[in-house]
């Protein structure tokens, strides 16, 4: 049962966006997210919607996959909307019992909802078209200027990719230990929250021990294959910009200019 979980939500298909250099996608998404929080009028959001629409069209990923990501934050979205709606002081529009909806409240609530929706859909476009592996690579390469201030960029990227590799293995192991403990009479399902948390102890202890053992083995195997950190290392799949990537950068630049001039970012 636990094996079915997939991390990230990569959608396999052939599109311009899938082939694009992950650095472009990462940078673009970042700029897009920042722009969402800087817009001062509704025109800015219109541009963001247009931009997002183009990108979704290019990605060839069915729209329902993007909406799937929304399900996870629907509660958060509702809470934000409700709080903003009722708790923003200003000129009253409607008063029901003790709750007042103000004009300002309505405006903030709508803006917030729009922002969050665009944010989630925008970032799922990135995760749907980029494998976790490519993302790690992009982060390593993109953050490499930070090496100057002694940020262990390569090590962080390596840790991330190893974590990704071991998630399914540890999930499988959890499944196995769980079954073994159930066979010995362990009960993971009944009781209150406190009781259930306590029942997790016989699951977590063996899992941690085995994870440490695996880490030890893996470190030895990596050393045996001459791993000695990021220095002097070459790449099997180096990130190289192609023509399409420059076009994409130009496209992002146009978006940026448009949002600054029309969306009044400054």
């Amino acid at each position: 049962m636990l094996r079915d979980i997939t991390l990230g939500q990569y959608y396999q298909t052939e599109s311009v966006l899938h082939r694009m250099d992950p650095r472009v996608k990462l940078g673009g998404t970042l700029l897009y997210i920042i722009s969402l929080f800087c817009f001062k009028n509704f025109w800015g959001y219109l541009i963001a919607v247009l931009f997002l629409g183009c990108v979704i069209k290019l990605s060839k990923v069915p729209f329902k996959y993007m909406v799937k990501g929304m399900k996870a934050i629907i509660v958060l979205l509702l809470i934000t909307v409700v709080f903003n709606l009722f708790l923003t002081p200003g000129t009253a529009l409607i008063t029901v019992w003790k709750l007042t909806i103000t004009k300002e409240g309505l405006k903030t609530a709508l803006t917030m909802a729009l922002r969050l929706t665009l944010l989630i859909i925008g970032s799922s476009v990135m995760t749907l078209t980029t494998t976790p592996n490519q993302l790690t690579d992009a982060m390593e390469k993109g953050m490499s200027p930070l090496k100057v201030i002694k940020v262990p960029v390569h090590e962080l990227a390596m840790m991330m990719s190893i974590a990704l590799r071991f998630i399914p293995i540890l999930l499988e192991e959890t499944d196995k230990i769980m079954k073994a403990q159930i066979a010995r009479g362990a009960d993971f399902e009944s009781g209150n929250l406190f009781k259930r948390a306590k029942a997790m102890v016989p699951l977590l202890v063996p899992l941690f021990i085995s994870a440490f053992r695996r880490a030890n083995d893996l470190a030895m195997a990596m050393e045996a294959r001459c791993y000695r950190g990021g220095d002097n290392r070459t790449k099997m799949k180096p990130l190289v910009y192609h023509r399409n990537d420059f076009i994409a950068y130009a496209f992002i630049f146009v978006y940026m200019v448009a949002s600054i001039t029309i969306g009044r970012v400054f």
Partner: protein
Amino acid sequence: MGIIKAENVTFEYIRRDEEGNVEGITTAVDNVSLDIEQGQFIAILGHNGSGKSTFAKHLNAILHPTEGTVWVNGMNTRHEEDVWDIRQTAGMVFQNPDNQIIGQIVEEDVGFGPENMGVPTKEIWERVEESLKAVGMYEFRKHSPNKLSGGQKQRVSIAGVLAMHPKCIVLDEPTAMLDPNGRKEVIRAIRALNDVEGMTVILITHYMEEIIYADKVFIMDKGKVAMEGTPREVFSQVEKLKKLRLDVPQVTLLAYELQKKGLPLPDGILTTEELVQELLDLKNGNLERR
């Protein structure tokens, strides 16, 4: 001096209590000497705790001997500056395939070693292709390692070592966690490497069936080399093997029992075909005599 030479190697595990006082010393490897020539297929055999895995880790400079010296291709494993060259010369495959695959895609894992060595990108791809072909896993190059069987994973691990272009490959119980089919797959791949590519192979195992193809067998017990010789020489001493709590292959045991009952069979029969042939010869010989 051969590709690998060990001289009076002793390794002690020191157990300490909480204050750091020595509680006890376990001698895992005790005064082992051996000399391995380029191109040989060597098997090191022993039951659990015989020190065979500890010894294997010396060949890759993961452990350093307490006493004695190990040379790999003329380099002393104690010399810090040679460590990476040693690991490149004597590649190592470990027991658990899950814990030694680093990449999330087969080809990326095989490329990990060359990447670390600073091999140019184009050559990495060539090496990856040739290594995966050598173990027969080329068509799986785009797969995730999690979806492969144990035998396939272990073959990927072997390819990962091959891509570093080692002179010698040390396999530390590569088949211990595999099912019989996976075991056969891996042993076939290892033998092909030795036969076709002339790779020096050091196979550490506790399965008797796996060593019959070896050029030379070392049997370890309590950290010492208890027996050494060709598989035939080793298997001819059934009583001694039994004393070392090692199982003799069924055919060898059958031949031994028949021999004890008075059939004039030669010592150390290793395969079923061999026994069948000997028995047929005996039968025909008897008929001729009649």
